[in-house]
């Protein structure tokens, strides 16, 4: 009977002994490979770009703009930014690019993010490559053991990401100065920074961990009306977490690239007032 309570282990997956005898690993006829391919390309492009920029240790400051990759700048070898996010926490022994110190946090946040996990498990790990497409691995233990069990530290990174987003907000405020540090001015860069910080916050707030902390963990919404509303708000954002993840990834790279262009003298930041 189909209720049968015996189960025989068999590690053949869809081509296992007990399954319907079909040789093909999948019978999908649509372009299932497109999504993982595009994802992989997008992520790879970002990795290449950000690695170059993080290690270049140059062209990351063009007053009043500091590249989000280098903010806050925590080593002595940072360029001086007036009233900027400098703090020589690391002293003079740090010889590498100061970006490395701080990029760990947003990188960790994104690496352990529930959306990005889906994205790279599918596109890099092929686990699975697409729904109902057989994965190429013999064994699978998921996130049950080291190292992937560490994905559970997403919460830590979320807290850190809040701080980083705070600093980037500060940077955006600083962007309302002109290159001579007078307040009340705006340039094209200010707009780029504004767009970026809005997306960064939207991405950070829409995080599943955040949704859990603000209200998801509660049993009785009716007893916490404010947190219930907060949870609903985060939930609405959370529905677009994937979109926000990509949009903020692009915007942060663009903000950095903008600073690079201005700092390296490719063009001057067009000033509005």
């Amino acid at each position, binding site marked *: *009977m*189909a*209720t049968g*309570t015996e189960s025989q282990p068999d590690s053949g997956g869809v081509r296992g002994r007990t399954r319907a005898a079909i040789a093909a690993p999948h019978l999908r006829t649509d372009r299932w490979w497109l999504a993982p391919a595009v994802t992989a390309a997008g992520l790879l492009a970002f990795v290449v770009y950000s690695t170059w920029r993080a290690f270049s240790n140059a062209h990351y400051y063009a007053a009043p703009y500091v590249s989000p990759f280098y903010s806050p700048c925590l080593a002595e070898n940072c360029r001086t930014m007036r009233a900027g996010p400098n703090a020589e926490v690391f002293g003079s022994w740090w010889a590498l690019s100061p970006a490395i110190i701080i990029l760990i946090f947003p990188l960790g946040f994104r690496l352990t993010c529930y959306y990005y996990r889906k994205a790279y498990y599918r596109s890099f790990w092929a686990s699975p490559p697409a729904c109902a497409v057989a994965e190429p691995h013999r064994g699978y233990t998921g996130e049950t053991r080291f190292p992937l069990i560490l994905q559970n530290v997403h919460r830590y990174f979320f807290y850190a990401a809040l701080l980083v987003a705070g600093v980037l907000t500060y940077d955006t405020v600083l962007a309302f100065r002109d290159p001579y540090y007078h307040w009340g001015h705006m340039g094209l860069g200010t707009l780029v920074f504004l767009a970026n910080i809005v997306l960064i916050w939207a991405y950070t707030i829409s995080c599943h961990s955040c949704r859990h902390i603000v209200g998801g963990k509660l049993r009785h919404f009716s007893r916490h009306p404010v947190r219930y509303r907060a949870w609903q708000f985060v939930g609405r954002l959370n529905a677009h977490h994937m979109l926000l993840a990509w949009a903020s990834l692009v915007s942060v790279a663009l903000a950095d690239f903008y600073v690079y262009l201005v700092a390296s003298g490719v063009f001057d930041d067009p000033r509005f007032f």
Partner: protein
Amino acid sequence: MSVVDRQEWDVVVVGAGGAGLRAAIEARERGARTAVICKSLFGKAHTVMAEGGIAAAMANANEHDSWQVHFRDTMRGGKFLNQWRMAELHAREAPDRVWELETWGALFDRTKDGRISQRNFGGHEYPRLAHVGDRTGLELIRTLQQKIVSLQQEDAERTGDHEARLKVFQECTVTRILKDTASEGGSAAGRVGGVFGYERETGRFFVLEAPAVVVATGGIGKSFKVTSNSWEYTGDGHALALLAGAPLLNMEFVQFHPTGMVWPPSVKGILVTESVRGDGGVLRNSENKRFMFDYVPDVFKEKYAESEEEADRWYDDPEHNRRPPELLPRDEVARAINAEVKEGRGSPHGGVFLDVSTRMPAEVVRRRLPSMYHQFKELADVDITAEAMEVGPTCHYVMGGIAVESDTAAARGVPGLFAAGEVAGGMHGSNRLGGNSLSDLLVFGRRAGWHAAQYARGLADRRPRVDDAQVNTASAEALRPFSARTEGEAGPPENPYTLHQELQQTMNDLVGIIRREGEMEQALHRLAELRVRARRAGVEGHRQFNPGWHLALDLRNMLLVSECVARAALERTESRGGHTREDHPAMDRGWRNVNLLCALADPGGTLAGTDPARGQIRLTRETTEPVRPDLLALFEKEELVKYLAEEELYE
């Protein structure tokens, strides 16, 4: 013949819908070792299709509601043919049955103060239906299913075996109820001894011996072409009871739900829940007229609005306005739609328009009727928030069924046989109100399980015995379709699918929503022919999960039940509830207290010898028990006059 696997149980429940599962829970909780048999997988029963809600006078939405009002509505809906004691028990016990579900984990929609929310439905004076969006039946089944699992978990903790005291045999079909053969002719004569069935997956036969059998197999809709019922509804329980010697009651009353989908053809008949109307949907014809105002019958004149303005006010202020005529009992609405279509005022695909799109904002429609929105979007490519649905009557429910004792759910005439749910007759009289079926399942499911367990305990030291002869006969009957090709009866083997389609067409055309004497005689004639051909129904392949074979076996049941419906419908020369005669269009008070009972012409239960022309069913009339005076006193005299005969009134 191979040895058939035999097991012993205390109570066997046939059917795992709402009534079957509720019966099983009760029997197990009262100490009986209980087996449940279902044709589908556990949790797929037709009950999941119920959308609207469970009617129970909890008075959460309107404090004036009470069991008496519910009883009154039920009797009115059934046109006073209801087995009144059942209607009383039902109205009294329904709230407890609903509340009990909450303690098993059910999550109904809530009122502002945290109680169970109740919605309006056709024929119910107050908002009374506990619901979960429009998937109440699913919630009911899942809750009962999970309660069964929790009982199994308890048993596993105690005995190490989940199935020690409660087991579900899924994907198994029962083909015969077996009788006790321990003491021929003695006190045990005619007693139930167990069931014979086959596993669909393997085709293997099995016998479950048990002193008590609860039949809870649901309805008969698959005998009709346009139906909201699933494939399981082949009238198995009705036929099993008949064959075991129990009579069926008032089989002429078949409810055609007024609103089934009419297009595309492949989904014709699928239900459009009544809550669409309860929540504000209105019926219009091709002239854009709300035609239901023209169809309020005299008995309901005082209760329903006369103008669109009044009807529309009712949704917000039911205290001071009368309800819209779209919410008349189902039989009235179905007939009205049928008449409109006939007069040429129907929609392009032969229905009428049911519109919510002009009545409420799209967002409200999506929230209140999510699965309807989904169903039309997916199946008909219609956006119900933007355009009207096309609907028409569809065979939905059979009010008739196994004649039972009201308090115990025991089938009349066969000790040890119990019936609950749609397969049992009497409760709903000539027409069932929406929402009353789910509460019926719970109230009488529980009662059937309770009394079956009690009855079984009484026989603990005199367990029935089932002899091999019965088992061999049942096996031979079940294997017959495989030898149809070799037996050499007149004519070639018949395709069971073709026979089924012809049966459905016959019932739909000739014993459908509007009935005429000549057509029903013709139907009986065709049924006789089909019966002969069905004996030659042949199948290909082997016994392992063979749908052709399964259908060939189900044909016997559908043919028996269809004959009951046709004969009873021919006999009752009046129109009442789910039985409408064009040649006798009025309700006749003389028929108010008459039950029609169907029994097998050949009480031996072997169908082979039955005369093909005269049929397999004999009808008898009986007079119903007078309604208890205190219950009758719940009605106004003026109302009773419309239903009851003079002599009944003054008794």
